[in-house]
């Protein structure tokens, strides 16, 4: 992601906002008024977008007319708290938007708000999860560079998922989120609301279960979700385990190469090959480090998101199975369901492919390192032979 230092003009224009969310009131002043040019043209943004998403996403018949990136995390310190602000850049040709480019700054809370509004407005649709509020299992320090980067990518994916959704992307909260310089005036309800609502509904659901006959599709969906959730959790755990083992392997590798160097210090003719082996092992260590990084930053976050997806969906399906408007919910969810499944397949497929490619690359690089060593060793004996022939 490019890190442009385009100053966002926050100080200037405060919005006059109507409490009625259905009314879309935006003044022209919300667009970038400072006249600085965006280094990226929409076409180069397409390329950027393609790095993180699969081509298939764009073949649903609609050509993409909105591009969103989340980047440039910056630390903000106030008297009360420290938090990170992310820059959200939007480029669009949609007519509902007054301008074709927007730059706003949002914090994690803002994303939570957006998602809860979407859940509220579309209880029957599948909405992509956000990265978690807190870090699990102490794998990464809060506000470490890795953590921020992982979160940034997840937030980026989240907004893009919304923008790809045929219904959600036209939601006015979404538009506000993307365009309003100040979000605070728009936020009325806290994020915790929906989770409390969800608990209540689920309690009712459990008490009423068995009385209503569920449509078979729902049962199947529930079964699938149960299994899917299970499996994706397992894959996630296995991946975490792989990362852990790789890290321990790397630690030992780092101890290993110095032993060759130490020995080399004793030797005469053997010193050079010993040192060469040491440097080969070192280079392979570096490649291992990169491999681990790739796993942590590409595969693991996607798996994690789908673990969250699975959990959220399971809950949703339970709720929906109860609704009086079963038929309507059924149809809306069904359509969204295939959209989600497709999206899931695409995301996971691309993450696995990327992992496999990275592993091939890893082995190819290590192979080159050792072949170079062999080359350097095999040359010498032939040289000796030539010299003897001459003498």
């Amino acid at each position: 992601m490019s890190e442009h230092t385009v100053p966002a003009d926050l100080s200037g224009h405060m919005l006059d906002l109507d409490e009625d969310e259905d009314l879309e009131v935006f003044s022209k002043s919300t667009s970038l008024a400072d006249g600085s040019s965006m280094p990226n043209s929409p076409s180069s943004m397409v390329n950027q977008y393609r790095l993180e998403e699969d081509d298939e996403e764009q073949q649903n018949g609609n050509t993409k007319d909105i591009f969103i990136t989340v980047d440039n995390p910056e630390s903000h310190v106030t008297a009360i708290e420290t938090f990170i602000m992310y820059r959200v850049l939007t480029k669009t040709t949609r007519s509902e938007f007054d301008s074709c480019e927007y730059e706003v700054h949002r914090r994690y809370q803002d994303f939570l708000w957006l998602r809860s509004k979407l859940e509220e407005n579309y209880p029957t649709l599948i909405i992509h999860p956000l990265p978690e509020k807190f870090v699990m299992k102490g794998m990464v320090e809060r506000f470490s560079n890795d953590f921020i980067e992982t979160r940034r990518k997840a937030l980026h994916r989240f907004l893009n998922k919304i923008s790809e959704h045929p219904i959600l992307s036209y939601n006015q909260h979404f538009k506000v989120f993307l365009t309003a310089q100040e979000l605070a005036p728009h936020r009325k309800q806290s994020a915790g609301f929906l989770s409390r609502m969800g608990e209540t509904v689920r309690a009712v659901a459990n008490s009423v279960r068995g009385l209503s006959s569920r449509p078979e599709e729902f049962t199947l969906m529930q079964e699938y979700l149960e299994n899917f959730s299970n499996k994706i959790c397992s894959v996630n755990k296995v991946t975490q385990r792989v990362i852990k083992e790789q890290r321990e392997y790397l630690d030992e590798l780092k101890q290993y190469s110095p032993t060759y160097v130490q020995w080399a210090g004793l030797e005469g003719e053997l010193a050079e090959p010993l040192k060469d082996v040491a440097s080969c092992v070192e280079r392979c260590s570096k490649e291992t480090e990169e491999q681990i990084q790739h796993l942590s930053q590409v595969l693991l976050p996607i798996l994690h998101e789908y673990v969250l997806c699975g959990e959220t969906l399971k809950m949703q399906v339970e709720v929906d199975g109860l609704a009086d408007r079963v038929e309507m919910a059924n149809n809306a969810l069904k359509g969204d369901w295939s959209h989600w499944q497709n999206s899931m397949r695409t995301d996971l497929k691309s993450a696995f492919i990327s992992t496999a490619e990275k592993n091939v690359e890893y082995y190819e690089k290590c192979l080159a390192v050792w072949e170079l060593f062999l080359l350097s060793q095999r040359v010498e004996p032939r040289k000796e032979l030539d010299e003897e022939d001459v003498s």
Partner: protein
Amino acid sequence: MTLCACVLAHQTHQEEKMSEDGREELVGTDDDSENMAVDGSLNNTMVEEGCTLLGRMEICVAEAEKRSGKNAVNMQETFTVYLIETRPMDAVADGRNPAPDSLWRRYSEFELLRNYLIVTYPYIVVPPLPEKRAEFVWHKLSADNMDPDFVERRRVGLENFLLRVASHPVLSNDKILYHFLTEEQGWKEVVYETGFQAKADSWLRALSATFRVRNPDKRFMEMKQYSDELQSHASQLLRARAKVADRLYGVYKVHGNYGRVFSEWSAIEREMGDGLQSAGHHMDAYAASIDDILEEEEHYADQLKEYLFYAEALRAVCRKHELTQFELEMASQDLISKKQQREELATGIVRTFSFKGMTNKLFGQEAPEQREARLKLLEELIVEGEEAVKEKTVECEEHVERAWVDMQRFKEQKDKDLREALINFAVMQISMCKKGIQVWSNAKECFLKM
């Protein structure tokens, strides 16, 4: 019998090791330079075929078998015996293929042979045996002496030992060695009859004693220092390698879980099912591949271990020098003091303190007859002492001369062998990388079908 074929290929070379064909070429090119490098008269292995035992006879440790029997304290025990096969070289060269002579030996007999060689040739860096117990293990399984992989590696190590000894310019001529290879019964008795055991005991005692040598040969002291450091660094390397192997094992095996989960997952998916399932198979293959990879790497570890153990043999040669030098210095010292005593007796001038001198002063001098007797005795002792010094000087010089030659030979062998080992290591790494590329490329193809 492919092992004997390998032996045949290397029969003209000083260093015999089991290796893949690719190394033949490499070993061959160094041949001439080795002869040139060292004083030709002392490095005569390459000069003619049949010069060393190995030149005349093909040797191979073909098999290993488990036996049980009663041991020294009449307890039932299980042990492994190794089959040593020999064939005369000329028969093989002629194209005849006679059945080899063979006999069975156990590890303890190899140890006995080696102890005999160490004591009998203290100026030779005697090749080591493969380890008695598995050390630097990366996985619990291979710590078991009865483990078939361990037994197999030991068989290779024992063969290597025999090949090294039988191709050594000095050791290969030993009769006891020849009997070891050709006479199964009664060999132990023959060894003990040489009386080497007594020498071994005193040698062991001397080895562990601490004594101060005034003028050791500097080169030997440096060599001793080198052998200590070699032991230390080789151990560290082997320990680190074992840990790395252990971790690598963990990484590969964990991927096996992908295989299981993908398989289960594929059952609930329609479009993704096939891709997932087949990718899972490749993950299983990946996880399984590490066993062979690491087993092969054990051979590399064994090559390093041989030189770890060689370091001890080298050290022993240096210690022997210290011992002979020390004995020479003691003998010289003793001679000097006796000569001084004689001088004092003869001239009456006391240069050094002695109780006799004190008592003389206190109680008066002794009678002339007594003095004469004592002088005569001293003269005899001095003559003996001079003989002793002469002997010790010769012993010391001979040891230095012969040991230095062998240490040079050892150094060249070591440099060559270890370089080969490092190349081997690289070859193994390359093979592992190629397997990895294949597995993950295959997995990628499967993922593409998802």
